């Protein structure tokens, strides 16, 4: 058999890396903001406990970590978050698959899911407190309600939009019944499922903190409340900083990496 080389594979050009100048600009901007903040705080227009300087926030942050209150708070919140998110993922994936599978479920349950998404999840807290009492389960319930619907909807969407040609090709090659799920339907829906899980995670994070602020449990929300009660705004801002950093880290490290892998595989363009 002849072996003539054909055109080399077409690899789409990767977008150029951001130039270092962007990072310089960003660093300068952040430093300017911090400097302005420090100057305003030291000007004496407002008392310290209302508007602390960034240096004080930094000290509070260091103290919080040194005394161990922040690590305890972080572990408490993250533990609850992960527990709620895992429950939401299992329920959301199953619900999404069921809705994609059965038209009547989509028409009935799907409507309910859509409607309930209009409700900010923290609105479940009064009910949850009634149902579960003053227990951590009440917050867990709010977290689950916050993220389960987004995950279910994205799963349903991804599965329903699986290109029929993949299913035909797979069946023609011998895939039968249940095999279609792990080998075709779920992988084909993965991009959509990942963005649903990412959305679900950020909803869970928001719901958790809203819940912790309204109902005290050892956690980041509780640290915020304590800061307010002690009139210690430096502590409040330090905890806010911790919350921002945790949110960014999970978004970039966990979901960012997952999304990039899927996009590279499928050859989808980066936004």
């Amino acid at each position, binding site marked *: 058999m002849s072996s003539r080389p054909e055109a080399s594979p077409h690899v789409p050009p990767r977008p150029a890396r951001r130039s270092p100048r962007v990072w310089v600009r960003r660093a300068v901007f952040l430093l300017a903001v911090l400097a302005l903040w420090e100057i305003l705080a030291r000007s004496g227009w407002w008392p310290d406990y209302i508007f602390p300087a960034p240096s004080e926030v930094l000290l509070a942050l260091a103290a919080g970590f040194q005394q161990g209150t922040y690590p305890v708070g972080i572990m408490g919140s993250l533990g609850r978050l992960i527990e709620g998110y895992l429950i939401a993922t299992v329920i959301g994936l199953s619900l999404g698959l069921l809705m994609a599978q059965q038209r009547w479920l989509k028409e009935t349950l799907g409507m309910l899911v859509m409607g309930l998404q209009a409700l900010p999840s923290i609105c479940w807290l009064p009910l949850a407190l009634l149902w579960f009492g003053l227990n951590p389960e009440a917050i867990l319930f709010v977290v689950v309600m916050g993220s389960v619907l987004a995950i279910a909807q994205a799963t349903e969407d991804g599965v329903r939009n699986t290109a029929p040609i993949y299913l035909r090709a797979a069946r*023609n090659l011998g895939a039968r019944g249940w095999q279609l799920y792990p080998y075709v339907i779920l992988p084909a829906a993965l991009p959509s499922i990942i963005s649903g899980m990412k959305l679900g995670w950020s909803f869970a994070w928001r719901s958790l903190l809203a819940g912790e602020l309204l109902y005290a449990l050892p956690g980041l929300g509780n640290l915020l409340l304590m800061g307010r009660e002690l009139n210690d705004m430096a502590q409040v801002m330090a905890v806010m900083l911790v919350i921002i950093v945790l949110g960014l880290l999970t978004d970039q490290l966990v979901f960012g990496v997952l999304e990039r892998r899927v996009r590279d595989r499928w050859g989808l363009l980066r936004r």
Partner: protein
Amino acid sequence: MQQPRGLQVINVDKVYPTRSGNLQALARISLTVPPGEFVCAIGPSGCGKTSLLYILAGLEMPTSGQVLVDGQPVAGTEPSRVLLFQEAALFPWLAVEDNIEFGLKMKSLSRAARRATTQRLLQMVHLEPFADAWVHELSGGMKQRVALARALAVDPAILLLDEPFGALDAITRELLHDELQELWMRMGKTIVFVTHNVREAVVLGDRVVVFSPRPGRILADHRVDLPRPRHIDDPDIAELARRISADLLLSQDVEPA
């Protein structure tokens, strides 16, 4: 290796219900393909050729009529008759070699056995360096080669090809004509190849079956008794293609020979 099998299409009609009434895609198609024959079906776009292939593959059922494989009626789709889609239909979440292995994995073959077949097929379609590539990194011709390897991996008795080279440039297409002829001469599988390019049909087929515009009926059935391997520029090919094109004069969607 699987023995090639014969196909028999008996009085097949295909009607699709649409919003504006019924659409008849195929009308009273009867066709017999002996084991090991390479048949090309040609006709204008929308003449129901693709529907016929889907029916042969068992992916769709005829509205009336019957399809027999070695005398047995076709019920549903199975890997003994593999269809190569126009768009290759490779799975973008799998690397090239995992695409080729797909059918073997569905048969729960061991990893070692799968890898051995995949290696052999990658070599056959000249894509060994691309075993780990992602689908989007391949050119159109390479995608169709992977699709061919994926189909051959399950060792079908009958190969069904739906305009697989339609979207390729002329050079790549001719190269794949050579390769497909060589594969067929070596493996002797029954092939039904659908195209709207008359010359392609004459180069590849033992027989060229001509379809009318919708609803598709068989207008003519030409034997191609030319020595292989054939090439698209052979004068005999051009001459026969001209005669077959005459059959199709009324339908304008056919690429002129």
